[in-house]
C-alpha cells in the first residue's frame, strides 16, 4: 500500500482532533493516539511504522511531546525502501532534538545513503544532514559532501552546496576545503545550483578571510557578468516573477557582491556599472522589483564610495519613503538607518517625512521611524524635533509611550543646550508620560535641578503647577514632592523668579496640601509615600506654622501596615515632637548632588538596570550588590557627601539613612541581599542605603551616643561589627524604644487592667526569662506579656532571638525585641512584648512552647522549653 496516501487511520486521527471542541478533548485524543503508537513501537510493528511516524509529526506540530518516536525515525532511515527512508528523514528533522547521542546513531545510515546509487536517496540524506548535522557528523561526512558538489545531477549539487554551509558553520576550519568547489558552482547555468552556490560563497567569505580574498580576486568579474546576463535575460517562464527573471537569484548575487565590494576599491569599481543598471532599469511597480532595488541600495551603501551611485540610492529610498505601500515605507526606513552612517546629510533631507512616520498607525513603521529620528537628532535640530515628539506623546498609543518616552528622555539628556530647557522638557515628559519614565531618568532630573541653584525656585513652581494637572503620573509626583520638600520656601515666597514666569500665589498650607494629597493618593506607591513623609518633615521645619498639622498627618501612618511607612512615621514624629533642637539642622537643604559622580554611577550600573523592572533596579543599585567595586556606593537621593551639615560628626552619616528616600520596594529582600557582603561593603551599604533594620540601628546608635553617654559605643564600631549588621527584624525595635524612652511616660502602662503575678517562665543554667502580664481594659481575651531575658552566664550573648509557638486556640503576636545582644551576668536585659489572644478565654489557660537561639563565644546555642505555669484566667 502507499504509505503517503495517508492511510485511513491518519486521516481519522486528524479528523478526530479537528472535531475536538476544547483543548482538554484534544489532549484526550492525543493521549489515546500516543498510547497506541507506543504500544505499536513496543511490538516492533513494521507495517504501520511510517504511518505512526506521520501521526507523530502531526502531534508534534500541535505541541505535544513525541520523543518516544525518535528511535522509530532511525529504524525507518535504516530500512531499504525509499518511502520509508523519506518519512524517516522527515521525522528525524522534525522530532529529534540536539541530543547528540541519538543523532550520532544516524551518522552511519547517512554515510551509506550519501553513497547510495539512487540519487533521490542521496538527496534525502543531504537534506537531512544540511538541516540537523552536528559538528562531529560534519567532520565525519564532509568528504562525501565535497564529492557530491561535483555530482552529475544539478539537484544533488545544489543540496550539497547548502549542506556545505551547515558544515562550515559547525566546523569553520573545514572552510578552505570548500573554496575551490564553491567557486566552480558560480560558473553554472542551473539556477538552483547558482543560487545555492552564491549562498555558499557568501558564507565562506564570512567564515574565512582567505576565502573572501580568493573570491574577490577570481570571481568578482564572473559574478558581475552573471548578474548582467540575468538582468538582460529574455523571458524565462519558469523563473519569471512580474517580468523579472528569478528575483531571488538577483538578490543573492547582489548580497555576495556587497560582501566582496566592502572595503575593496577594485572590486567595488568592477561592479559599479551593473549596480547602476539595476538601480535605474528595475521596474518598481511590483514587489519583486522593489525587493531587488532594496537589495541594490543596500549594496551601494556598503561598497566603497562612488558619489553618483550613492545619489541614485538615496533617491530610490526617497521614492520608497513616499510610497503609499506600507511595506515599501518600512524597508525605506530600515535602509535609511544604514544610510545615515554613509550620508547623514541626505537622510536629514527626509526628516519631515520620517517624523510623520513616527505618528503612523502601524506599530512596525512607528518603531523604525522612531529609531531613525533618534539618530537624526543633533545639537542644531534637537529643539524642534523634541517638541514634535513631545507633542506626539500626548496622543500616542499606550504601548508606544514606553519606547517614545525613553527615546525623548535620552535625547533631551544628550543634546540639551541649557538647563532650563532640559527642565522644561523633562517636566513635560513627566507630566505626559511620567508612569513610563525609568527610575534613573527621574533621579537625573533631581540631580540636574539641584545643580542649578538659580533655577530652584523656577523648577519647584513649575512642578507645583504641573502637579495640579498631572497628579496621576507617579514619577512627576516624586520629583515634585522632593523639590517642594527641599525648596518649599521658594515656592511660597516666589524666590528666584525668572522673567518668563508668571507669579503664583501658594500659601504654606497649599504646599502641605499638595504633599498630603500625594501621600494619600491611591496610586502612590511606597516610594512616593515615603518621599512625601520626608518632604513633610522638611516642611515642618521650613513652615513652623504648619508644624502641628504636619505632625498630625505623619502620625496617621504610625499604624500603617507597611513596615517602612510605620517606622518613618514613628521616627519623624519623634523628631518633630521631641527633637526640636536638632530638627532644623537635620532637615537642612540637600547639598548639590555631584553630577559627574551620578553619571559615572549610571554608566556603571546601566548593564544591570537595563531590561530589569524599576523595582528591581531600585533594589540592586543602592545595595551595591550588583556593582561591588567601581561605582561609588552613594545613592543619589541619599546624599552622603561629606559636607552635609550634621548634628554630630560621628553620627552624621548614619542619619542619612533617615533622610534616604530611595527605598527598596521590598525591605526584607534587600536585607537578605546584604548577607553575602563582606565587612566593608556592609558598612558602605549601611551608610548609603536605608534598609529599615539598618537605619534603625544607626539611629539608635546615634541617639545613644548623642544623648546617653553611658554607652560609649561609636556608631561606626557597631556598624562595622558583623553582628550588629543583623538582618533580623528584632533589632529594629531599639530606635523606637530609645526614642520613646524620652517621653514622659508610656500610654500603655496607664491603661493596665487587673494585675497578674509575674512568673519566671523559663530558667536554665545560662538564661532566665521572666513574664509580666497585663490586659487591655475591655478586652479580656488578649494578654500583653512583657518578657525579660536575663543572661546568667559570664559571656555576652549575641544574635539573640526568641521564638514562641502556641496551640491553635491562641493567637500570638510578637513585637520586636529591644535588642539582640545580651550583656553578661545579668547586667542588662532584653525585653520583648508578646500579645496573646485566647479564643477560649475562661475555658482553657495559656500554654506556649519557646525556643531561644543566640551566640555565646561565637558558638550557636539553642534552648527550648514549654511554659505551663501561666497564671489562671489569662
Amino acid at each position, binding site marked *: 500500500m502507499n504509505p503517503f496516501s495517508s492511510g485511513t487511520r491518519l486521516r481519522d486521527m486528524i479528523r478526530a482532533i479537528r472535531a475536538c471542541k476544547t483543548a482538554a478533548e484534544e489532549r484526550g485524543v492525543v493521549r489515546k493516539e500516543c498510547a497506541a503508537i507506543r504500544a505499536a513501537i513496543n511490538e516492533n510493528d513494521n507495517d504501520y511504522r511510517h504511518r505512526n511516524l506521520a501521526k507523530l509529526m502531526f502531534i508534534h506540530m500541535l505541541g505535544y511531546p513525541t520523543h518516544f518516536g525518535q528511535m522509530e525515525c532511525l529504524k525507518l532511515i535504516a530500512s531499504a525502501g525509499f518511502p520509508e527512508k523519506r518519512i524517516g528523514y522527515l521525522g528525524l528533522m522534525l522530532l529529534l532534538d540536539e541530543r547528540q547521542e541519538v543523532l550520532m546513531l544516524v551518522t552511519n545510515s547517512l554515510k551509506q545513503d550519501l553513497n547510495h546509487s539512487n540519487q533521490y536517496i542521496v538527496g534525502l540524506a543531504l537534506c537531512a544532514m544540511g538541516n540537523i548535522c552536528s559538528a562531529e557528523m560534519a567532520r565525519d561526512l564532509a568528504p562525501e559532501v565535497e564529492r557530491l558538489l561535483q555530482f552529475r545531477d544539478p539537484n544533488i549539487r545544489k543540496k550539497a552546496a547548502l549542506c556545505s554551509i551547515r558544515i562550515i558553520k559547525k566546523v569553520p576550519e573545514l572552510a578552505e576545503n570548500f573554496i575551490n568547489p564553491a567557486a566552480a558552482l558560480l560558473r553554472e547555468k542551473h539556477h538552483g545550483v547558482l543560487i545555492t552556490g552564491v*549562498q555558499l560563497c557568501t558564507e565562506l567569505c564570512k567564515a574565512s578571510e582567505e576565502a573572501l580574498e580568493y573570491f574577490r580576486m577570481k570571481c568578482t568579474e564572473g559574478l558581475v557578468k552573471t548578474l548582467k546576463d540575468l538582468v538582460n535575460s529574455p523571458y524565462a517562464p*519558469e523563473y519569471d516573477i512580474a517580468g523579472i527573471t528569478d528575483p*531571488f537569484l538577483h538578490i543573492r548575487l547582489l548580497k555576495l557582491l556587497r560582501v566582496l565590494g566592502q572595503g575593496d576599491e577594485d572590486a567595488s569599481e568592477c561592479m559599479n556599472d551593473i549596480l547602476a543598471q539595476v538601480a535605474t532599469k528595475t521596474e518598481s511597480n511590483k514587489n519583486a522589483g522593489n525587493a531587488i532595488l532594496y537589495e541594490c541600495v543596500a549594496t551601494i551603501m556598503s561598497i566603497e564610495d562612488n558619489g553618483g551611485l550613492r545619489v541614485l540610492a538615496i533617491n530610490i529610498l526617497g521614492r520608497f519613503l513616499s510610497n503609499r505601500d506600507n511595506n515599501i515605507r518600512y524597508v525605506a526606513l530600515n535602509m535609511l538607518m544604514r544610510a545615515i552612517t554613509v550620508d547623514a546629510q541626505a537622510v536629514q533631507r527626509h526628516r519631515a517625512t520620517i517624523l510623520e512616520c513616527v505618528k503612523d498607525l502601524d506599530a512596525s513603521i512607528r518603531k523604525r521611524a522612531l529609531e531613525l529620528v533618534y539618530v537624526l537628532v543633533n545639537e542644531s535640530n534637537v529643539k524642534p524635533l523634541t517638541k514634535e515628539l513631545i507633542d506626539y506623546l500626548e496622543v500616542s498609543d499606550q504601548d508606544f509611550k514606553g519606547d517614545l518616552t525613553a527615546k525623548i528622555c535620552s535625547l533631551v539628556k544628550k543634546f540639551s543646550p541649557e538647563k532650563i530647557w532640559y527642565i522644561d522638557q523633562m517636566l513635560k515628559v513627566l507630566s505626559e508620560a511620567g508612569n513610563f519614565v525609568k527610575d534613573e531618568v527621574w533621579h537625573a532630573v533631581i540631580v540636574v535641578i539641584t545643580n542649578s541653584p538659580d533655577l530652584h525656585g523656577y523648577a519647584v513652581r513649575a512642578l507645583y503647577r504641573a502637579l495640579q494637572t498631572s497628579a496621576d503620573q507617579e514619577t512627576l509626583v516624586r520629583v515634585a514632592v522632593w523639590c517642594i520638600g527641599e525648596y518649599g520656601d521658594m515656592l511660597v515666597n516666589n524666590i528666584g523668579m525668572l522673567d518668563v514666569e508668571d507669579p503664583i500665589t501658594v500659601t504654606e498650607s497649599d504646599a502641605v496640601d499638595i504633599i498630603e494629597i500625594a501621600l494619600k493618593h491611591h496610586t502612590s506607591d511606597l516610594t512616593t509615600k515615603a518621599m512625601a513623609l520626608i518632604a513633610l518633615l522638611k516642611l515642618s521645619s521650613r513652615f513652623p506654622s504648619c508644624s502641628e498639622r504636619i505632625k498630625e498627618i505623619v502620625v496617621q501612618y504610625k499604624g500603617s501596615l507597611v513596615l517602612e511607612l510605620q517606622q518613618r512615621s514613628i521616627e519623624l514624629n519623634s523628631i518633630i515632637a521631641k527633637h526640636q533642637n536638632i530638627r532644623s539642622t537635620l532637615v537642612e537643604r540637600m547639598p548639590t548632588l555631584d553630577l559627574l559622580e551620578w553619571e559615572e554611577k549610571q554608566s556603571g550600573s546601566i548593564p544591570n538596570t537595563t531590561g530589569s523592572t524599576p523595582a528591581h533596579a531600585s533594589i540592586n543599585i543602592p545595595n551595591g550588590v550588583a556593582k561591588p567595586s567601581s561605582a561609588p556606593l552613594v545613592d543619589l537621593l541619599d546624599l552622603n557627601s561629606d559636607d552635609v551639615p550634621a548634628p554630630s560628626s560621628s553620627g552624621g552619616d548614619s542619619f542619612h539613612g533617615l533622610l534616604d528616600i530611595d527605598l527598596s520596594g521590598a525591605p526584607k529582600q534587600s536585607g537578605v541581599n546584604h548577607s553575602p557582603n563582606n565587612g566593608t561593603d556592609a558598612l558602605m551599604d549601611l551608610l548609603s542605603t536605608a534598609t529599615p533594620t539598618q537605619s534603625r540601628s544607626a539611629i539608635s546608635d546615634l541617639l545613644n551616643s548623642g544623648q546617653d553617654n553611658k554607652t560609649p559605643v561609636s556608631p561606626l564600631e557597631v556598624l562595622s561589627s558583623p553582628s550588629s549588621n543583623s538582618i533580623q527584624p528584632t533589632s529594629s525595635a531599639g530606635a523606637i524604644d530609645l526614642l520613646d524612652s524620652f517621653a514622659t511616660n508610656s500610654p500603655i502602662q496607664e491603661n493596665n487592667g487587673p494585675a497578674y503575678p509575674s512568673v519566671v517562665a523559663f530558667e536554665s543554667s545560662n538564661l532566665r526569662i521572666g513574664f509580666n502580664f497585663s490586659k487591655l481594659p475591655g478586652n479580656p481575651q488578649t494578654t500583653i506579656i512583657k518578657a525579660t531575658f536575663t543572661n546568667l552566664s559570664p559571656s555576652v550573648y549575641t544574635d539573640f532571638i526568641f521564638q514562641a509557638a502556641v496551640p491553635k486556640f491562641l493567637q500570638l503576636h510578637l513585637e520586636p525585641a529591644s535588642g539582640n545582644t545580651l550583656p553578661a551576668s545579668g547586667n542588662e536585659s532584653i525585653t520583648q512584648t508578646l500579645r496573646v489572644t485566647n479564643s477560649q478565654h475562661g475555658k482553657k489557660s495559656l500554654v506556649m512552647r519557646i525556643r531561644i537561639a543566640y551566640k555565646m563565644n561565637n558558638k550557636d546555642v539553642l534552648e527550648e522549653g514549654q511554659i505551663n505555669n501561666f497564671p489562671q484566667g489569662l
Partner: protein
Amino acid sequence: MGIRFILMVNKQGQTRLAQYYEYLTLEERRALEAEIVRKCLARNEQQCSFVEHRNYKIVYRRYASLFFLVGVDNDENELAILEFIHLLVETMDRHFGNVCELDIMFHLEKAHFMLEEMVMNGCIVETSKTNILAPIQLMDKTY
C-alpha cells in the same frame, strides 16, 4: 542562514505547519508560536507585513484563512521573503490545485517535502516550481 522558521497558522491561531531551522525546545516553540500569532493576527490589512519580535523579524502574508509567517534575521531582505511566501503558495497551488488549510492538514508530510525542496537550513534551495515539484510528482507516480 536567513530563515529561522516557517509557520502556517489558520485565522483561529492554530498551527497547521511548523518548520524550524534552529533548535528550540517544545516549550519555547509553543510560547513563540503563541506570541507571534497574537502579534501578527491582530494587525489589519493596511499595516505592513513585517513585525519585529525579539531579535528577529517576522514577515507574514495572509491567504484566505491561512497565515504564512516566516521568521528571518534582521539583515534579511523582507520584500524578498514576501515574494518567497508567494512562491511557496503558488507551488502548493500547482500541486494541490488551489491549496487550502485542509490540504496542508491532511497532507502534512507532502507540504513538508515541498518545503524541503525550497528551503534547507534556512537557505533557499530552488525557485523553479517545476524543479521543486519534480521529486514529489515522481513519488506519486511510483507509488
